[in-house]
């Protein structure tokens, strides 16, 4: 008989909350890489806060903030090469940004622009996925392609703890392990699916252990420890490239803010809990302390980065806001490769309506 109590999952940790290395881990990441990852995290935090403010000012649609989860996203995405594919959810802009998605694209998508989901050519990123866990299957399909074509690329898919309750998640893990595909299932366990806490989501002790049932490697990592996240992701990628199949990574983290701008998290989380995470376990502070201890970073550098990135963002937002909004008739062009007769007719009607001042 199998007993869950016999399973032991040790959470991988490498950097403590004061920025000190824990024990004697094998580290393959250079300090220079860590500095660069810090910059990505900082930028992601600034972008996130900026987009939240824009939403509050009515200049952005509903937005799902990611603050608190930067280490999980940046640390993992930083381990990819540009040949690899990212299949993100709606809270994974930091991962997409590290993988090369232009800021303009992220902001346009959040503004509800018609072309917000049009990922620029050459970038191996799928459009943001809304349906929980659907992207895990798409990443599996991509990984099938990579294996079939004999390519060296892997696919990584991002999702949350809630997604692990979905059938698609389990189907994806099963398909990926049966076909032994080069895919990494990267779960950001931020402990709440909107308001529902993890213990209402599952009765198992960890998400990582679900890998056992599918005959694949499962890893639980401190999701706010970017060094550990980066190392375990690198290992998973290496296994995938070596033909050893998929890995499920559970990065334990926390979202500081609401689920989306329409959510009020005070209804389901205590102030102390939020404080504990946002003040003691902030992934940015942890890495910053590490870098400062090593003399690789300081207050001045931090302020400079903040200022220059804020300027960059403000300029970009000005450009985006001054652009003409596509009219609704353009939407007809993308339903099919070629419009059918009824769509042509309806598009003409929409054009006439707009020309006559409709939609004002």
């Amino acid at each position, binding site marked *: 008989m199998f007993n869950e109590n016999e399973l032991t999952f040790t959470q991988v940790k490498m950097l403590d909350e004061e920025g000190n290395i824990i024990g004697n881990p094998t580290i393959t990441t250079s300090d220079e890489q860590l500095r660069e990852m810090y910059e990505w995290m900082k930028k992601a935090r600034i972008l996130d806060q900026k987009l939240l403010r824009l939403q509050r000012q009515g200049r952005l649609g509903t937005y799902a903030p990611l603050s608190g989860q930067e280490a999980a996203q940046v640390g993992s995405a930083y381990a990819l090469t540009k040949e690899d594919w990212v299949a993100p959810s709606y809270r994974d802009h930091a991962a997409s940004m590290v993988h090369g998605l232009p800021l303009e694209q992220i902001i346009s998508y959040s503004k509800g622009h*018609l072309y917000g989901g*049009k990922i620029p050519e050459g970038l191996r990123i799928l459009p943001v996925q809304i349906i929980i866990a*659907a992207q895990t299957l798409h990443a*599996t399909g991509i990984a099938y392609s990579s294996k079939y*074509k004999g390519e060296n690329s892997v696919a990584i898919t991002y999702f949350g703890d809630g997604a692990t309750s979905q059938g698609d998640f389990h189907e994806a893990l099963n398909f990926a392990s049966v076909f032994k595909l080069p895919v990494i299932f990267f779960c950001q366990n931020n402990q709440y699916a909107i308001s529902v806490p993890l213990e209402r989501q599952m009765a198992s002790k960890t998400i990582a252990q679900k890998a056992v049932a599918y005959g694949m490697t499962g890893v639980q990592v401190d999701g706010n420890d970017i060094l550990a996240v980066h190392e375990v992701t690198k290992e998973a990628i290496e296994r995938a490239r070596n033909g050893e199949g998929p890995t499920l990574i559970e990065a334990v983290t926390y979202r500081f803010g609401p689920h989306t701008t329409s959510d009020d998290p005070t209804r389901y989380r205590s102030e102390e809990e939020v404080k504990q995470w946002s003040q003691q376990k902030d992934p940015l502070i942890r890495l910053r302390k590490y870098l400062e201890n090593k003399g690789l970073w300081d207050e001045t550098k931090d302020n400079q980065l903040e200022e220059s990135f804020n300027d960059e963002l403000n300029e970009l937002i000005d450009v985006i806001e001054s652009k003409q909004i596509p009219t609704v008739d353009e939407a007809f062009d*993308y339903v099919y490769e070629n419009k059918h007769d009824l769509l042509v007719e309806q598009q003409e009607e929409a054009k006439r309506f707009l020309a006559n001042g409709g939609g004002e």
Partner: protein
Amino acid sequence: MAQMTMIQAITDAMRVELKRDEKVLIFGEDVGKNGGVFRATEGLQAEFGEDRVFDTPLAESGIGGLAIGLATQGFRPIPEIQFFGFVYEVMDSIAGQMARYHFRTGGKFDMPIVVRSPFGGGVATPEMHADSLEGLMAQTPGLKVVIPSTPYDAKGLLISAIRDNDPVIFLEHMKLYRSFRQEVPEGEYTIELGKADVKREGKDISIITYGAMVHESLKAAEELEKEGYSAEVIDLRTVHPLDIETIVKSVEKTNRAIVVQEAQRQAGIAANVIAEINERAILSLEAPVLRVTAPDTVYPFAQAEPVWLPNYKDVIDTAKKVLTF
């Protein structure tokens, strides 16, 4: 030319395309070694290899999602959903994902997927196998929905569907799989999607239909002929997008029409066809356009099928109501 059943014509279409284009992949439940529960993929794995024609674990949503991932990589997947009654398991992949992908990505990604699936009543399947759910599909922008009624059409339409860059739901009526043979050309030929076919010309009434009901309608037309009525039978072949031109042209000629579908009456293809006729040709009509459909109950158990399903007698009855209006 060979005489083929519809299932043979379908296999032949896939063989032609697997041979022509290495991006074509076939997968689903039991499609590999077993050749599919209806033998639609008979011999294809042996001929094209286990990487291109393969069994998946038993999970419809997974099959749909896999197809989407592969389509983003330039493949032309032909996933099989073993029975279309199981489509609810894969509705997100179909209606939520593949139907919208081209749109959501501003045209960056095509979804050249053909979801093949057997459906339809009259063959005493267990529950939840026989439903006509094309209306659900036709309601979804981004999908094309094709239903062949003959072996010849099935092959030409399937080849077109595989070559199409948009997702196509290709529904194969189980009753038609082996009910008759027809001459089917060898090699490749295509039949344009979105084009109806006049299966029988007539001048007194247009019977607009698709799938297995094409044959009930043709039989009805023969009977009506004996009573002096000349019925035109239009096989839609693609139920979305509709071939409005052919429908309207026919109605303008006959001035009377009925629409015949095997699906239940509520919110179906027939309702849509009638609405289009009303909007475009009402001044040509000498009588209201009526429908022949199954009733709005849940699909019944096999023993009730023969009574529940529409047949040529229902078609004759309804046609006469319109002819004598």
